[in-house]
């Protein structure tokens, strides 16, 4: 139930004992009539054509669709990494539609943790230095950065990798370091763009476990994936096609509903 003006949702959940609880949950993401198009010569190619989406605090959402369906573009917009042409966007209870560049950077740093398909670790920096980057942009001192980054890496089972550079790590370790970087500022929202796309099955499992743990810790996770079995692990799946959301379903495990998008 959308309560106008307060951005508070009502959500029904069923626990193991089939008791129905009514939570008052904050909306983490709310986009309305989002449009974005790329210019291709004289032609404008829509990549988001009137997308409406609401994601509540604490949800784990998989964004799926074929290549070119607009899912990565939507994730970039949600992460304030890219602009959009029309529509409104509210993030963590705040309207970010008119946000300036500097404020957007601050919001990315404080609210969002990113995980990318190709890891995007800086080759010249050690694991802890990579993990500490978001802290550095918060103005933390180097010593504090190292302590915090090391503690997150240890928690994620990467204690042995703290002083290694990315080329000394396996693909799975690299992505786990990237997850550590996403979590180091303790953000309420994690955006992951095909985080397992470059990984083998074992590394995929490890990374997914970390994301599930992040979700279990109360974070909202939105993940783009093209792997159906990965999408099936999460409670809510949003399907995109031709720049639109065409399906928004809760998983069977959650047992709530499956519906076509409007």
């Amino acid at each position, binding site marked *: 139930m959308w309560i106008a003006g307060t951005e508070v949702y009502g959500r029904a959940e069923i626990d193991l004992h089939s008791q129905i609880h009514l939570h008052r949950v904050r909306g983490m993401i709310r986009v309305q009539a989002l449009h974005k198009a790329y210019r291709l010569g004289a032609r404008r190619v829509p990549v988001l054509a009137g997308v409406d989406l609401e994601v509540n605090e604490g949800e784990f959402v998989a964004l799926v669709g074929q290549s070119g369906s607009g899912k990565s*573009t939507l994730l970039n917009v949600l992460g304030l990494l*890219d*602009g959009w042409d029309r529509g409104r966007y509210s993030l963590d209870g705040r309207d970010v539609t008119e946000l300036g560049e*500097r404020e957007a*950077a*601050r919001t*990315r*740093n404080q609210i969002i943790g990113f995980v990318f398909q190709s890891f*995007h670790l800086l080759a010249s920096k050690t694991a802890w230095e990579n993990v500490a980057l*978001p802290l550095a942009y918060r103005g933390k001192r180097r010593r504090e950065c190292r302590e915090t980054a090391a503690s997150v890496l240890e928690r994620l089972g990467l204690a042995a990798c703290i002083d290694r550079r990315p080329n000394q790590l396996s693909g799975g370790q690299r992505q786990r370091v990237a997850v550590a970087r996403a979590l180091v500022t303790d953000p309420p929202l994690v955006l992951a763009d095909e985080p397992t796309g470059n990984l083998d099955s074992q590394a995929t499992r490890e990374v997914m476990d970390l994301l599930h743990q992040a979700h279990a810790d109360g974070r909202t996770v939105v993940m783009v994936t093209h792997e159906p079995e990965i999408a099936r692990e999460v409670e809510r799946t949003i399907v995109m096609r031709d720049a639109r959301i065409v399906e928004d379903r809760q998983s069977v495990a959650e047992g709530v509903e499956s519906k076509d998008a409007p």
Partner: protein
Amino acid sequence: MRETLDEIWESVSRQPLRTATTAFGVFWGMLVLIILLGAGNGLGNGLERLFEDDAATSVWIEAGKTTTSFRGLPAGRPIELSIDDVNALVDAVPGLHALSPRHPLASDIVISHHGRSGSFPIFAIYPGYATVERTLVSRGRLLNELDVRDARKVVVLGERAAEVIFARPENAVGKRVAIGGERFLVVGVFKDAGGDSEKRRVLIPYTALPRTFDGSRRATLITGVTEPEISPALLRSEITRILAARHRFAPADRGALGIWVAIEEYAKITALLRGVRIGVLLVGLGTLLTAMSGVSNILLVSVRERTTELGLRRALGASARNIFALVVAEAVLISSACGALGLSAGLGLLALARRLGLQTDYFQNPEVDWQSTLPMLAVLVVSSAIAGTFPARQAVRLTPAEALRHA
């Protein structure tokens, strides 16, 4: 701060050769600028010292040859100035004082004293010549009006000449020396800022000349000083008018007389020096600007190579302003460090040149005051910051998502 320095070092060390080449450009630009400025100052010092040697208001009149026929007299006639011309000019030209003839004795005349001898330029003069040459007495006195009036056989020696003729030059005053067989009393020893050649000169009263060596009453040169407010053109026309009437040549004949007015020449030299300094600055700044464009260029390449990294940094919380500042700081740091090195090396080389005595009469004390380098450093920092804005703009041109896709 450390993070920023680390980032800059990382960027710089990514392409060490290219960075070193560009950095050398800035270093070399600054070095050239300092050397050129020092050389310009050395030239200026040399010329100013030449002028310091003589009175700033000195006037020098030299006879030449007529270039036009005049009242039946042919062109090409040599003019010979004499002591009568000096006397004719006295009080006739307003503002012209300390007039003196200067006539050299034959160059084979030897000065000797108790077995020591030497050959020096010997000039017969009036006392006013000391004012023109800014001659300073070291010991004894200079020539005076009584020496001239009484045609005394007295002599004043330049310091170098005294050192050659006397074993103990400090005792030269009061001794008699033989000049071409005539005995002259040494009444003084002088020094002169004009360097060694002027300290070798020997001066005797002009009136002693006809009695001893030369009865012609010639004066190859007439010297004097003028007042600063007198117009050089007026002075020249008055001198020319009087001497033209006496020697019967056309006042407009520029070949008949050479009149050199120090004030006028000084103004010309000053203008020339100003031109040289401006030229040096333009060349130096041009070199620096070229180096700056090199810095800008290398940073453009660096920024292009780091597009993904910069996109990632923005995704993790760096604002466009952070990235912009990082790139500009890199430009400023490279330029300032290398510029400061070039500046220090330039100042060091100039100091070395001074220490090695690399100087001539026209080139003295090549130096650049370190305080005057501060504006240069300011120009360097500002221009490097401006040079850095081009790559910095490039660095923040893309959205973080576009930059991340760049890989």
